[in-house]
């Protein structure tokens, strides 16, 4: 309710400064009254004008009146004024005739509104590269050449082929599909995009893997033609390795031209394999992995907001301020800041929120509202009076299930006082009807026969609360996903099943009783564990939001790995910035820094943690509501390439140190060799350390700059200079750095002869062994997480197979940890460079800020409760996946043992209830009686009480 969504809107004008912007926004006409539209779809059915559907990448048609896609928010139709027959030529108006609620409004005029805000976040996204201009690929001419975005739509159940994968030319199932990588990226000849789009390698692998699910039968083959495979994200290398082991062929080659296949079906491509042989291959379909460009309106937005764009048209930012622009109060995030994937976008969105929050914290809460509800009616002693609302869901349910027959049937069920059938039970007007009927018929239980609770249960609970009923007195019966969606071919049986489902729902809801949501106090303080760049930035952002922070650091100084690095990839010197940040942290009144610290214990849960911290010889007790874990990672010691046998063989950090110490030996060297992936991407550590390719090219450029005569070689497996780091790779090559590829099974060999270091490697292009003098050998040692097993044990959080701390969801919750109230930032989560560590640290502050922004927080009421039947057998204790149950012993009074469950930790999964043989622990809302009533209704025809 604190979000106002203005769709079909554009920025017109911007004035003001941080804290006080006045922005004019043009709201274009929708021509549909959103208060009246119930998205029934009749208008679109009757509309005669077909238009290319942009959502389906122009592969299908929509109508001039349309919704973007079936799950659009807002789920309201809109008329496309460029194509509507009435708006362009004054004829038709069919939609208006057929709309059941009179929602069409051709008089809708566009409006310009003025909005006053304190900060702005620009997240306009990206534009997919259009390969139409590339003559060699035949896109737009050869039917079976598609872009990756079109392919997504082809795979999608909501797409033009409803998820049946067929090729455009003759609609047959393709068996052999080829992906061409780097179309519109890493290319300054056929386009101007010298950068890497960061996501295409992974999306191509995903598409190839998902394709094998769609295709049936023998002879299916997916081939990916690539230059480098960039799987540098968390768990991505494993995914890539799995794909390699599976059906996906990875071919390190680029075809020159795509020619049409026989009869213009399929394609023919010619490529040269790694041995120099030309191979001609036919494929049924070719997918161009197109890159991400800056969004079309980037220049206009930049101009209106007076921010800068970089040479590729994306927003210009700094590594130490990854979402800030030159205009205070205006932040940029998502793909507009740089091409990036979903986890990174979601993280950096929170980063931008943190930056906005820190400048507006003085006004936090000034313009927001919390909802209040009327007092609840007490239904404890009442006989159940059940209202059943059956949803037609437009035609989604009603086309298969006979909703009228269902309604008639429901009328006769025990305790049912009222039955209604609605077109869309979730629409705003139906909520009003439900509330009205509750009052009118004195209903005290509600059954909604409709879709899945995951869509609208909170909405219905809210409707009940507004009608003075406890929210847990409503039950949803899923006659959509579990009925009409899967039984379309058998409507009679579907209707019978729906009757049974409603019967079960009614029997169950009669057993529902009011539940209270527990409110816990929030200690509005944060604990930040780890004083590196991530942790420090997190603490500063939290402090700027007004919250006290305790920052604990293991070492005797703040700064972590940043002390050992010289520059960021954008060339920003790290030391001066680091010292500035440390200074800010140490002088910030709201941040209490504890060095030489060790976390000894953790108690409590979200909103209310307490811990004992050991610092020097003291023990300190602290209380906090949230914790940010930023314990970092470190460079490993290589176990190969003769590391340790000679001072001239060093790791990247050792190299940076040598440069800092003005080591002249290095500058005078005649040759330097870098070897990548030392200890990463192997059996022991099947992950990519993400930063080393970039650091290697930075170092190589440095060497070539101080000594252009030096021979510099980089031996690599895949160059992973993602995003505009690709510019550094190009620069290194232009300066004469020679890059030699090796593969995992044929690693370089290091030898020392007559005090000279040599590196032998097989050069794959000329297919000859090469022996390199290496006056200095720099190894890209794998990054490994800092010791975190004690922390993991204390907080009961988890690590992945490689020891990095887990996030709650790799895509949608990349900063939250699976333990409520904990957030992760920096390299302890996964290796990353300075800008990403800072971004994640700030993001954690935003996420933590959501919890700290309130005095109290409500927990869901579906929690376990121990009954007096518990005899302390403790079987449930180990069964609980959330460690919410503890065994206690009342030695004073009864001498009995019993369990206690912590509602803050309990997730209501029900495993305890299922495990307990005595009914000693139940889960509210899912008691044995409630479930039994459902089962009995399913099996018999009588209501058993």
């Amino acid at each position, binding site marked *: 309710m604190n979000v106002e969504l203005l769709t079909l809107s554009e920025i017109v004008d911007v004035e003001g400064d941080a804290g006080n912007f006045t922005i004019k926004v043009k709201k274009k006409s929708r021509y549909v009254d959103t208060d009246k539209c119930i998205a029934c779809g009749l208008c679109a059915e009757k509309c005669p004008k077909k238009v290319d559907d942009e959502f389906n990448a122009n592969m299908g048609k929509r109508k001039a009146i349309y919704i973007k896609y079936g799950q659009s928010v807002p789920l309201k139709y809109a008329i496309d004024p460029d194509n509507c027959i009435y708006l362009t030529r004054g004829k038709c108006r069919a939609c208006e005739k057929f709309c059941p609620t009179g929602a069409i409004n051709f008089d809708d005029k566009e409006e310009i509104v003025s909005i006053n805000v304190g900060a702005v976040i620009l997240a306009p996204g990206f534009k997919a590269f259009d390969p139409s201009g590339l003559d*060699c690929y035949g896109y737009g001419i050869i039917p079976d050449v598609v872009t990756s975005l079109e392919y997504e739509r082809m795979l999608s159940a909501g797409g033009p082929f409803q998820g049946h994968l067929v090729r455009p030319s003759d609609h047959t199932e393709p068996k052999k599909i080829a992906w061409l990588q780097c179309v519109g990226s890493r290319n300054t*000849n*056929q386009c101007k995009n010298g950068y890497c789009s960061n996501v295409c390698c992974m999306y191509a692998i995903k598409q190839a893997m998902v394709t094998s699910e769609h295709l049936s039968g023998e002879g299916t083959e997916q081939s990916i033609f690539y230059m480098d495979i960039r799987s540098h994200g968390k768990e991505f290398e494993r995914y890539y390795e799995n794909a390699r082991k599976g059906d996906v062929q990875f071919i390190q080659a*680029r075809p*020159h031209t795509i020619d049409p296949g026989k009869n213009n079906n399929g394609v023919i491509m010619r490529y040269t394999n790694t041995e*120099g042989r*030309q191979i001609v291959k036919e494929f049924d379909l070719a997918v161009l992995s197109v890159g991400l460009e800056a969004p079309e309106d980037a220049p206009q937005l930049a101009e209106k907001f007076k921010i800068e764009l970089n040479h590729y048209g994306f927003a210009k930012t700094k590594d130490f301020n990854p979402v800030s622009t030159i205009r205070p109060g205006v932040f940029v995030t998502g793909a507009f800041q740089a091409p990036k994937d979903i986890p990174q976008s979601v993280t950096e969105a929170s980063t931008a929120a943190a930056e906005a929050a820190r400048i507006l914290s003085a006004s936090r809460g000034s313009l927001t509202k919390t909802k209040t509800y009327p007092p609840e009616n007490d239904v404890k002693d009442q006989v159940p009076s059940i209202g059943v609302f059956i949803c037609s869901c437009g035609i989604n349910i009603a086309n298969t299930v006979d909703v009228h027959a269902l309604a008639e049937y429901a009328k006769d069920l025990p305790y049912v006082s009222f039955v209604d059938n609605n077109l869309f039970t979730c629409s705003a007007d139906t909520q009003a009807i439900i509330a009205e009927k509750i009052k009118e018929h004195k209903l005290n239980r509600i059954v909604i026969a409709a879709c899945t609770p995951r869509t609208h249960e909170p909405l219905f609970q809210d409707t009940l609360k507004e009608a003075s009923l406890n929210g847990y007195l409503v039950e949803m019966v899923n006659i959509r996903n579990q009925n009409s969606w899967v039984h379309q071919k058998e409507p009679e049986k579907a209707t019978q099943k729906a009757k049974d489902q409603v019967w079960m729902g009614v029997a169950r809801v009669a057993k529902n009783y009011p539940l209270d949501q527990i409110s816990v106090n929030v200690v509005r303080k944060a604990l930040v564990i780890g004083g590196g760049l991530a942790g420090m930035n997190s603490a500063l952002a939290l402090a700027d939001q007004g919250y006290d922070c305790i920052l604990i650091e293991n070492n005797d100084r703040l700064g972590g790995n940043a002390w050992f690095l010289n520059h960021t990839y954008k060339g920003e010197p790290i030391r001066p910035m680091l010292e500035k940040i440390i200074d800010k942290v140490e002088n910030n009144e709201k941040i209490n820094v504890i060095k030489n610290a060790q976390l000894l214990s953790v108690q409590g849960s979200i909103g209310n943690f307490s811990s004992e911290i050991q610092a020097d010889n003291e023990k300190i007790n602290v209380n906090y509501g949230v914790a940010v874990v930023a314990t970092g990672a470190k460079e490993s010691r290589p176990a190969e390439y003769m590391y340790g046998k000679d001072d001239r063989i060093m790791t990247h950090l050792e190299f940076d140190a040598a440069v800092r110490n003005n080591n002249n030996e290095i500058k005078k060297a005649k040759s330097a060799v870098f070897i990548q992936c030392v200890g990463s991407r192997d059996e022991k550590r099947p992950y990519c350390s993400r930063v080393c390719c970039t650091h290697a090219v930075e170092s190589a450029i440095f060497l070539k700059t101080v000594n252009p005569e030096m*021979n510099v*070689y980089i031996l690599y497996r895949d160059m992973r200079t993602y995003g505009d780091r690709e510019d550094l790779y190009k620069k290194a090559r232009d300066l004469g750095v020679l890059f030699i590829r090796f593969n995992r099974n044929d690693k370089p060999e290091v030898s020392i002869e007559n005090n000279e270091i040599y590196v032998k490697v097989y050069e794959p292009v000329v297919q000859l062994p090469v022996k390199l003098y290496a006056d200095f050998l720099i190894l890209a040692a794998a990054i490994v997480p800092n010791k975190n097993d004690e922390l993991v044990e204390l907080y009961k959080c988890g690590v992945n197979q490689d020891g990095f701390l887990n996030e709650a969801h790799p895509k949608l919750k990349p900063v939250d940890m699976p333990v409520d109230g904990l957030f992760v930032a920096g390299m302890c989560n996964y290796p990353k460079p300075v800008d990403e560590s800072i971004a994640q640290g700030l993001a954690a502050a935003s996420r933590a800020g959501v919890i700290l922004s309130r005095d109290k927080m409500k927990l869901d009421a579906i929690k376990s409760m121990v009954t007096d039947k518990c005899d302390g057998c403790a079987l449930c204790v180990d069964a609980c996946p959330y460690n919410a149950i503890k065994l206690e012993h009342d030695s004073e009074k009864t001498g009995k043992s019993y369990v206690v469950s912590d509602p803050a930790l309990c997730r209501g999964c029900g495993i305890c209830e299922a495990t307990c043989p005595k009914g000693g622990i139940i889960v509210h809302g899912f008691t044995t009686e409630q479930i039994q009533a459902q089962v009995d209704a399913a099996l018999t025809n009588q209501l058993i009480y």
Partner: protein
Amino acid sequence: MAEILLGREKPGIFKDKVMELLPEGGNLNACLTCGACSSGCPATGLEDMDPKKFLRMAALGMDEQVTSTPWVWMCTMCRRCIHVCPMEIDIPQLVYYARQSWPRDKRPRGILASCDLALKNDTCSAMGTNEEDFEFVVEDVLDEYREAQPEFAEMKAPVNKQGAEFFFNQNSREPVTEPDEMVPLWKILHLVGANWTYGTKGWAAENYCMFLADDKAWKHIVETKAKAVEDLGCKVWLNTE
């Protein structure tokens, strides 16, 4: 072959020298070894060579192999490689300079001989045909066809017609070995009523000296042809090769 030893004095400087001659170094250092060039090259695989390998050898300083592989003479200069190269690397120019590094007398006999013959006369004919002979053959064949095919009695094959709009060049071989093959073109030009001419100077269409990578000779051939066109005052030079 023994391993390549790198890291001290440069084993080869051929690539560097070429880079000095090309604008922006021809981007010769920018190769990603992606292989797009080789995938489209008609000469890939010949002499166990392709554009990617060729450039790579140059980058590794394998000058001896680069300047001695016969592959450079199998390249047709079609430029398919640079067309798709993500870095727009000028491989054709690298090939050209490799050709040029061959001692002149060691270059392929056919191309060498044709260039030398072309230099003999202002005709630029790669078969050494002189001006008189060319004019004679044209007139002779024209008369023959005018007589044999009455519908083409008025057909012309002008030579050195001052002020004609189009200057047509002619393949060197045809006047000598297959003179009848010249006629279809005349018939078309006659039927459309084009105002055209041959020139006795600069009429030969090829430039074997360019293929030979002999810059001076190439320039001379081009200048001879250009002068011939200008001297006749023609507006359009039409290249039939």
